[in-house]
């Protein structure tokens, strides 16, 4: 593991890790904030923006993120729009991951029996209270494993930012491998970093799930 002892490589890995963390956290937070109003809006049977959201979700899930990033960073300048590397990576990754989160949360809402909504109405609950107290907690309980899984996907997806001239963790590993030829050693070191980030997310998932199982059965 003498790769870890070289100060140049240490610095590269550290800078890459910081960049990976920044991108991952921003993408996870922004995507999860955007998704709740979208998912609730999609519960309406009719709505002007329904078609727009369905179209967005379709495109974002059908097109590979790699192609989106390429178009945002290398393609937009042809239309006179110049985005710096980090903003273009953030926009592309948030665009893609929000569509996935939307599907998970929508599916959560849709598996709540319609009778509960009627019951809430019959009890005189206002729409806000119905959502806050009845619908949202249940939708999240069902969607949680997928949402947490997707958060990990976002961390892994941040590695695609290396395409648009960002030196994150995977880019750093590419440089070190091309100088040391020690692919497996470098990859193991890098996967430990990704594991540690994911461990934080999985710990949050367990904390959430243990709260949920309490009182069941």
């Amino acid at each position: 593991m003498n790769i870890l002892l070289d100060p140049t490589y240490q610095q590269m890995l550290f800078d890459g890790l910081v960049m990976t963390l920044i991108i991952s956290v921003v993408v996870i937070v922004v995507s999860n904030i955007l998704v709740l109003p979208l998912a609730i809006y999609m519960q309406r049977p009719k709505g002007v923006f329904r078609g727009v959201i369905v179209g967005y979700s379709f495109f974002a899930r059908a097109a590979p993120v790699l192609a989106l990033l390429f178009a945002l960073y290398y393609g937009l300048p042809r239309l006179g729009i110049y985005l710096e590397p980090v903003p273009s990576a953030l926009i592309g990754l948030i665009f893609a991951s929000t569509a996935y989160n939307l599907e998970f949360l929508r599916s959560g809402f849709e598996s709540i029996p319609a009778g509960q909504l009627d019951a809430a109405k019959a009890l005189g609950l206002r729409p806000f209270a119905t959502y806050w107290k009845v619908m949202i907690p249940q939708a999240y309980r069902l969607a949680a494993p997928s949402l947490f899984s997707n958060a990990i996907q976002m961390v892994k997806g941040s590695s695609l930012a290396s395409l648009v001239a960002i030196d994150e963790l995977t880019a750093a590993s590419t440089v070190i491998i091309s100088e040391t030829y020690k692919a497996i050693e470098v990859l193991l070191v890098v996967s430990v970093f990704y594991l540690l980030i994911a461990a934080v997310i999985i710990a949050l998932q367990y904390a959430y799930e243990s709260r949920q199982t309490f009182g069941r059965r």
Partner: protein
Amino acid sequence: MEIAIAWLPRLLTAAVLTIALSAVVFTLSAVFGLLLSLVHYGREKSLLRRGIEAFSAFFRSVPELVVLFLFFFGGPQIGVDFGPVGSTIIAFALVGIAFDYQVFKGALKAIPFGQYEAGLALGLPKSVVFLRVLVPQILPLARKGWITYAIGTVKRMSIASAVSVSEILYVTKQGIAATNAPFTFLTLAVGLYILIVTPLLVFNERKPRQAVAR
């Protein structure tokens, strides 16, 4: 346009390979993901269950490219050569199982445990309770998360281009390098992905038949 026509046969072959690999990975992930989610049902603190959790945690945490390289480069070092396609299937199936396990586990939680206990109390064998009672209920519940992940698998297959599997993005990258027409190729590639993924997305939009489960 001429460029597009010259490269189209190779791109279509690549699309077929992408579909075939995705189908194999999808099947392996779904079958083993479902089986693992049923192991020690209701005994979440058991040692075996913790082992499965650890497996799932590892393979959904490490980027696919890293897992792929570990098999591709690591194989020959321990005397087994999986080859590019073999390494791709093993790596993506392991990651897929880890993910599908989570999705099915989530769906299983939405079903009251009492159903399982009732089934056993009626004297039904465990396998019948699983196959006739639980699985028919968790499949529709899990469908959305499960198919959504499968769609991701089709697109993530592009990562296999790093080990010279001739899937869509690999041929696209070669086309870009050979012709300097990046946007023609990216448009074609995105078009192909949309064609492949649309049937899955449409299937996923259908309303789940939840009335059956209740």
